[in-house]
Each structure stands twice: as structure tokens, then as C-alpha cells.
């Protein structure tokens, strides 16, 4: 569906003497197969939007080339546009307009009939919990409702390839979960391919077959969520012991199975353990034998935050 090699884009800011080059994206290779849901994960300013705008023909790459939905980006932009849907990060409807007519007009610009656009538009309003909003001026919608309207706009013509730029920003947890279901349905019910960007690790994890991590305009990792997590050695096992005396005993026992160092913090003893779940029964027996009494135990699979930290040396959250 998407084949891109060496896609790059620089911007020039300032004038004359103060003129500076910003390398927003410096040579990314992207390959997305039909029916895949691929997530583009990276902190602010990583180059996600710039990449998406290049792939959707809105921005000409300064280097590299790509085929999108089977058409060459540079020579057949109109065919690319016909085949894709795009939900931009910053909205797509006029504040002066009526929600329903915006979506119908947008659909019609893709060549579908007014009737088709209306039917599909109403269906999307229904699925995205926008019922009753059809005749409302968009400026009277709440932020999250307006965001869902943007998403409906990008889907009204049933594109076989959908680009979503941070689709869930501003949505409450319930709307977020609902949108996740909707995005999965795009693939299963309509056979669409989805390429989305996000800051949220849980979102990329829950939704995507494959994740590309981008940082400073370079893709630093590209794999399935599970494979990426496997690159971080082991699960995090955290033991909370009942008293001070137990700390040393628990730490010593944990060290026999740990991948790295054992960390202690008050009554909390933690370490990374390969296949934490499998190691657990033996570990519990050993702790028992050593006479360490436990308050609680937690095994946490590595998160994408851990992955990001391993890849870039920075935590996703601290870079935001």
C-alpha cells in the first residue's frame, strides 16, 4: 500500500543571515502492506505530521520517492488523492458551517453522489456517537465532537488507505475506546489499510500490527509491538515486602533470576526478569524458602515507553 524510500523534507526558517534549515524528516523508508494497521509513534516535533503530509501529496519531499495506494506520489498525485483519506492533526471543517453539509460536500469532492455522501455521512455520525449533530453549526460542537467530525470527514468516501494524524487527541476515554473499535473495524469490515500517528503508547500497542518509532526525523525502530517489547530485556518484577528485614532476603533471591541489577526503594524490590510469568512459581518458592514474606507482587510487561527509552536513551514522557 505504501512504499517509500529515503523520504526527506527540510524547511527553511528565517531570512537571510538568520536563515536556518530544519530537517523535519531526514530519509525515512516506509513499507506498509494492504490491510495492515501501522502506528507512527514519536514525541512532539519528531516529524510524524511532515511525513504524513508528504504521503498525502500535501507537501513535496525534498528527497526520496514513494508509491501510495499503487500510484507514484510525484507523477500521479490525483490518483493518490482519490484512493486515500486523511484526517489532519488540526481539523478540517469551517467554524461557520453546518456539520452535515461539510461532510456531504467533502464526500462529493471525491466524486461520490450527494445521496451516497449523505448515507455514508449519517452512518459515520451514528458510529462515532455524533447523532443529533447533523444540523448543528460546527462551532457549537465540543472539542471531542469536532474531532470525531474530522474523522468522519476523512472516511466519508470509503478510502482503501486512511491516514490519521493523532486521531484520539482530545477524546475522553470512552470515545477513545470507541474510536479504537472503529479503526479496527475499518480493516476487518472494509478491508482498509490504516496508517496513524500517536503519542500514546497504549494506543499504538492496542491498535497496531506494527509500530514505527520516529525521533528527530529518523525511524529508530519498526516492528510488531511484541517484538519491540522483547528488545527490552525482560519483564519488570516488583515485590513489596512486609518489613525492613525482608528487603535484603528478597533482593538476594530476586538476583538469582534477574537480568540486571536489583533495585530497592523502601519496601519495594524490583528487577527485570526474562519471561517473568514463567519464572514466577519458582521465584515464589525460593522467596518462601528464604523466609521473605511478601505484601504483594507485580509483573509488568515492558511498555513502549521502555522501548523508547532503550532506543533513544530518552523517555517518551520526559521529551514531551
Amino acid at each position, binding site marked *: 500500500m505504501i512504499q517509500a524510500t529515503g523520504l526527506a523534507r527540510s524547511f527553511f526558517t528565517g531570512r537571510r543571515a538568520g536563515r536556518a534549515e530544519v530537517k523535519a524528516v531526514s530519509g525515512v523508508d516506509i513499507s506498509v502492506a494492504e490491510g495492515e494497521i501501522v502506528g507512527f509513534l514519536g514525541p512532539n516535533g519528531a516529524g510524524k505530521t511532515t511525513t504524513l503530509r508528504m504521503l498525502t501529496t500535501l507537501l513535496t519531499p525534498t528527497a526520496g520517492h514513494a508509491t501510495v495506494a499503487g500510484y507514484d506520489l510525484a507523477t500521479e498525485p490525483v490518483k493518490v488523492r482519490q484512493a486515500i483519506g486523511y484526517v489532519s492533526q488540526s481539523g478540517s471543517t469551517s467554524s461557520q458551517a453546518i456539520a452535515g453539509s461539510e461532510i456531504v460536500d467533502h464526500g462529493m469532492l471525491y466524486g461520490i453522489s450527494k445521496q451516497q455522501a449523505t448515507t455514508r455521512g449519517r452512518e459515520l455520525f451514528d458510529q462515532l456517537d455524533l447523532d443529533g449533530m447533523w444540523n448543528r453549526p460546527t462551532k457549537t460542537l465540543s472539542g471531542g465532537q469536532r474531532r470525531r467530525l474530522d474523522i468522519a*470527514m476523512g472516511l466519508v468516501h470509503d478510502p482503501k488507505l486512511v491516514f490519521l494524524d493523532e486521531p484520539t487527541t482530545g477524546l475522553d476515554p470512552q470515545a477513545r475506546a470507541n474510536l479504537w473499535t472503529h479503526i479496527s473495524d475499518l480493516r476487518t469490515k472494509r478491508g482498509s489499510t490504516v496508517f496513524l500517528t500517536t503519542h500514546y503508547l497504549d494506543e499504538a500497542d492496542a491498535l497496531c500490527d506494527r509500530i514505527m518509532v520516529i525521533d528527530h526525523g529518523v525511524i529508530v525502530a519498526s516492528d510488531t509491538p511484541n517484538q519491540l517489547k522483547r528488545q527490552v530485556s525482560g519483564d519488570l518484577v516488583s515485590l513489596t515486602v512486609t518489613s525492613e528485614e525482608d528487603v535484603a532476603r528478597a533482593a538476594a533471591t530476586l538476583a538469582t533470576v534477574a537480568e540486571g541489577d536489583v533495585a530497592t526503594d523502601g519496601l519495594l524490590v524490583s528487577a527485570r526478569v526474562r519471561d517473568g510469568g514463567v519464572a514466577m512459581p519458582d521465584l515464589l518458592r525460593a522467596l518462601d524458602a528464604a523466609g521473605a514474606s511478601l505484601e504483594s507482587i507485580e509483573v509488568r510487561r515492558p511498555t513502549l515507553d521502555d522501548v523508547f527509552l532503550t532506543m533513544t536513551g530518552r523517555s517518551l514522557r520526559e521529551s514531551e
Partner: protein
Amino acid sequence: MKFFRETGIIFRRQLRLTLREPQWIVIGLLQPALYLVLFGPLLEPLSRQLGAANAYTLFVPGLLVQLAVFGALFVGFGLIGEYRDGVIEAERVTPASRTALLLGRVLKDMLQMAIQGAILIGLGFAFGLRGSAVGIIVGFILAVVLTGSIAAAGYALALTVKTEDALAAVANGVSLPLILLSGILLPMSIAPLWLQRVSDLVPVKHIVTGIRDLFTGDIFSWGPFWAIFWTIILVVAGVWIGTRTFRRQNA
């Protein structure tokens, strides 16, 4: 076919948006009426001196062109709002022709101006405008087409500067000398020679002069010829610049 359909979609959308803000329509209609009522009487006693049998054949063509120029130079404000809302990007990501995105808007501006212009001419008649019916119709059409050219350029300008402040500065900066030098309120023929020579460089002046000739029934003469000539040139230039801007990335 596809092109006309897309132009129609944009045209209808823009029309709908305009109708949702009726106060602008009222203001747009009120302005020419005020000019006629408050400025027309001043001109009447002067008309002999200015070489016209009927003051309103001088005045109404000028107001028509003023409507075209002023109205159209400021259409960009709406576009900047749309740009900020992300509408332009959303339209540019569809397969629609970039020229259609521009033309649909321009046609709506032309329709709006045509309605205002027709009311202006109607009011003119009430005040005593008399002239050649054919000439008035041709002159009216020229003014409407001129609106298209200036609106297209106004959109290009808006997409280039992208902020209301900058647009207001440029549009005011352009429109004032344009209005003064094109003899819209008073004909340039009463100006000193140097001023006439300067105004000869302003295409809109030739259009105003030509429309005045048309109104008095002087149809097959050089005045209307140059008016038509310059209108065509300006339309081609305006649509070309406008389309180029709509096509340009980052616009």
C-alpha cells in the same frame, strides 16, 4: 465535466456560508445605496462641467467598479479563516481540481457582486439614471467579470500572507491609490495632465472610462474596446495567479 461539478460544489458551499452571515449581505447592499443617496446629489450640479448630460452615467459606472474592486480585494478575509480551520488543506487533499477550488469561490463573489450591482443600477434609475440599455448591460457584465479577476488575486494574496493583519495592510494599500487613480468618483478627464498620464498606467481607469462610454450609448468606440481588452487581461492574470497559489504547496 468533473471540473464543472467540483466548481459547483465549492460554489454552493461558499454561497451557503455567505447566506449564513446575512449581515454582510445587508452591509454590502447598503454601501452603494449610501453612495447614491449621499454623494449623488453633490455630483448633479457638477455634471455639465464634467461633460455629461446625465450625472448618473458618470457616477453609477464608477460605483460599479468600486463595488468590484473593494468587495473583491477583501474576499481574502474569509479564506484566511478557512485556512486556519484547515478547510483549504482538507480540500487540497481531495482529487478536486485546484482551479475548481478557486473558481467556485470566485463565481460566488461574482454572483454576490452581480446582485449588489443590479440593485445599484436599479437605484440609479430611481435617482434619474438614463442611458443606453445595451450599454448598461454590457457595462454591468464587465464589472462583474472584473470582480472575478480581483477576487482571484485577492485569494492568492490571502493565501500568501496568511494573516488578517497583513492582508488588511496590503488590501488597503492597494485599493486607495487604485480608487483615486482610476477616476471612480470623478472622471480623470478633469485632472491635470501629469495626473492623467499616471492614471493611464492603471488598467482599472480604462475599464471605468469604457463603462461610462457604454452607459451613454457610445458602444462601438475605443473606450469600450479598451475596457473589454483590460478586463480580459486582468481575468486571465487573476485566475492564473490564483490557481498557481492554490496549487502551491504550503499555501
